């Protein structure tokens, strides 16, 4: 059942309508109204440029001093004034990817269950509760992580994991609690509601005719979902995942409370790590020397560029598939 022919929905006829004209085309109040709106609309992109400018000028001393080596050196020593951001870049990417690995299957399952399999009376309560997860403040997640998640991981997750996969490099060393694993898991829980909510919207937008066609071909419910519904909403689903990734990259408080805040690169999930957002939050207020402060500015600049890039990739993906008339682009 892998190659069900999928009809793309008919392209809506292009509407060409004349722009509505006011009787007094050059009315003064209209012009003021228009310039105010233009000002507001341009204000936001301008704000982004200003943020970029401030980050860049703040980072200038560190950029001059360390050059590109800032990106791949690992020493972070405020006493000797030597800074390298590699562990934080690594930790940010690793914790976010780990979060995606856990959250995407979970969130997609929730979305598919709610749209395809759930009995009607269960839909709204479950959807509401999942989305409620997004309303919990970050610091509450962090506290919950310290007192519930870490003891749970220590008692019930890490021992069986080590028993089965202990030979891999990802589970070397002793688990002390605060670690890449704990940070990744808390991030996963935090981004599930975002991915699930957007995915649900995307799947709801898939026309019933797609499912009916697959079912009429003799597909089971699962086969219909796999071969008709999911491919149809692909662009929207990818967008949902990347929105989740964007959120994970910038998440600060819960991560800094659980990840261990150690400037180190290690592939083991049990070892402490650091993220860029956490380092800025922790160290900025007490960054006493100019170079120290500037190094943190540069970390902020890298994080800014990284998240903007991720979001741009998401947009491009959505646009590209949207041209093929896939649904879901509208849900975003």
């Amino acid at each position: 059942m892998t190659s069900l022919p999928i009809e793309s929905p008919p392209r809506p006829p292009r509407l060409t309508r004349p722009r509505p004209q006011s009787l007094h085309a050059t009315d003064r109040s209209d012009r003021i109204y228009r310039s105010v709106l233009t000002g507001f609309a341009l204000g936001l992109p301008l704000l982004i440029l200003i943020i970029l400018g401030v980050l860049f000028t703040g980072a200038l001393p560190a950029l001059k001093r360390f050059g590109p080596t800032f990106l791949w050196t690992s020493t972070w020593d405020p006493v000797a004034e030597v800074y390298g951001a590699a562990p934080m870049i690594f930790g940010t990417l690793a914790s976010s990817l780990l979060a995606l690995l856990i959250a995407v299957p979970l969130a997609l399952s929730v979305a598919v269950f709610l749209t395809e399999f759930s009995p009607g009376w269960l839909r709204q309560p479950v959807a509401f509760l999942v989305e409620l997860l997004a309303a919990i403040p970050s610091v509450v997640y962090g506290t919950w992580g310290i007192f519930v998640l870490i003891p749970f991981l220590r008692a019930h997750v890490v021992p069986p994991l080590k028993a089965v996969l202990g030979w891999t490099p990802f589970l070397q060393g002793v688990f002390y609690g605060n670690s890449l694993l704990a940070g990744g898991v808390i991030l996963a829980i935090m981004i599930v509601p975002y991915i699930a909510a957007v995915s649900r919207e995307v799947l709801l937008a898939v026309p019933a005719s797609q499912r009916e066609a697959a079912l009429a071909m003799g597909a089971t419910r699962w086969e219909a979902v796999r071969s008709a519904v999911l491919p149809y909403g692909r662009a929207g689903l990818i967008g949902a995942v990347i929105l989740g990734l964007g959120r994970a990259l910038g998440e600060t408080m819960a991560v800094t409370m659980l990840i261990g805040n150690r400037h180190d690169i290690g592939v083991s999930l049990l070892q402490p790590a650091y993220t860029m957002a956490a380092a800025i939050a922790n160290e900025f207020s007490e960054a006493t020397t100019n170079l120290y402060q500037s190094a943190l500015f540069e970390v902020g600049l890298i994080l800014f560029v990284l998240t903007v890039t991720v979001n741009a990739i998401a947009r491009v993906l959505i646009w590209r598939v949207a041209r093929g008339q896939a649904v879901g682009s509208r849900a975003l």
Partner: protein
Amino acid sequence: MKSLLLLLAALPAAALAQVQLNGAGATFPNIIYQDWILTYNQTHPDAKLNYQSIGSGGGIRQFSDGTVDFGASDAPMTDSAIAAIGGNVLHIPTVLGAVVVAYNLPGLAQPVKFTPDVIADIFLGKITKWNDARLTSINAGLSLPATDIVVVHRADGSGTSFVFTDYLSKVSSEWQQKVGKGTSVNWPVGLGGRGNEGVSSTVNQTPGAIGYIELGYATANKIPFGTVRNSSGNWITPSLESVTAAAAGAMKDMGPNTDFRVSITNSTGPQAYPIASFTWFLVHKSYADTAKARALIQFIWWAESEGQAKAPQLGYAPLPRDLHPWIQARLKSVTAGGRAVWKAAE
């Protein structure tokens, strides 16, 4: 009618006499500073004081930029930072703080004893088990478990870290060479916690953990901490008395003309707890505004004299009495518009 007119005439004068004083800096002494401000304001309603606990580093920066009238810091300003503002700063000690070594070892009958070199080697990652011979030999009565030692340190920049690393730099040459002292350092091992609460919750939740936290925070939250051997060879339990003793012990090295930017860690007093420190107000040597300078010096002297009585009940160690004449001499040197403000304050 006449009295009413007089009253009306007096009102603007009273409004003019009111002085607004802004300060910012260290978080550690925030509780007592706020208490001082509140109490002082009851008897001196003309002085409006405002203190923001934004952290020592931020305090130094705002003080240097002139955005606040006084700063506060747990770590003294560096020579280069002082040079950057033309030397126009006085460090006035206010109260004392101490850093304790806290741990998570359930079921111990008495506090664990630490020698300076053992603390240094634990935080250097050279002693990794609680039943290491160097720990068991000084803790004869205790049955220390064979568990791993998990080091927990501050992840945020902090005066607490400064005091602790300053102490380790004094007692271990290896620490001094490899790590050094600072509000943030490159920790050889361990997990980072955010704030005293981050370190203590990580220590509490991690079996075999060891961390350093502020004495007042540890006492208030009943976190067990160790006894440390001081430079006289005595085992000292951290307490307000042993912290004040550390400052008293350090006085003879300071001398009456000190600028108070002295570290009192590893103090020579026989009853001194060795991981202790001043926390300071940062005051300009010369101000432009006479009224402001006068009100500020008046407040600080009140805090140094009457205010000290409040310290123990709020969990801070008061300054030793003998230090007061030296502080007074320093406050007397503050000028505004080229003239001393002290005499007018009396």
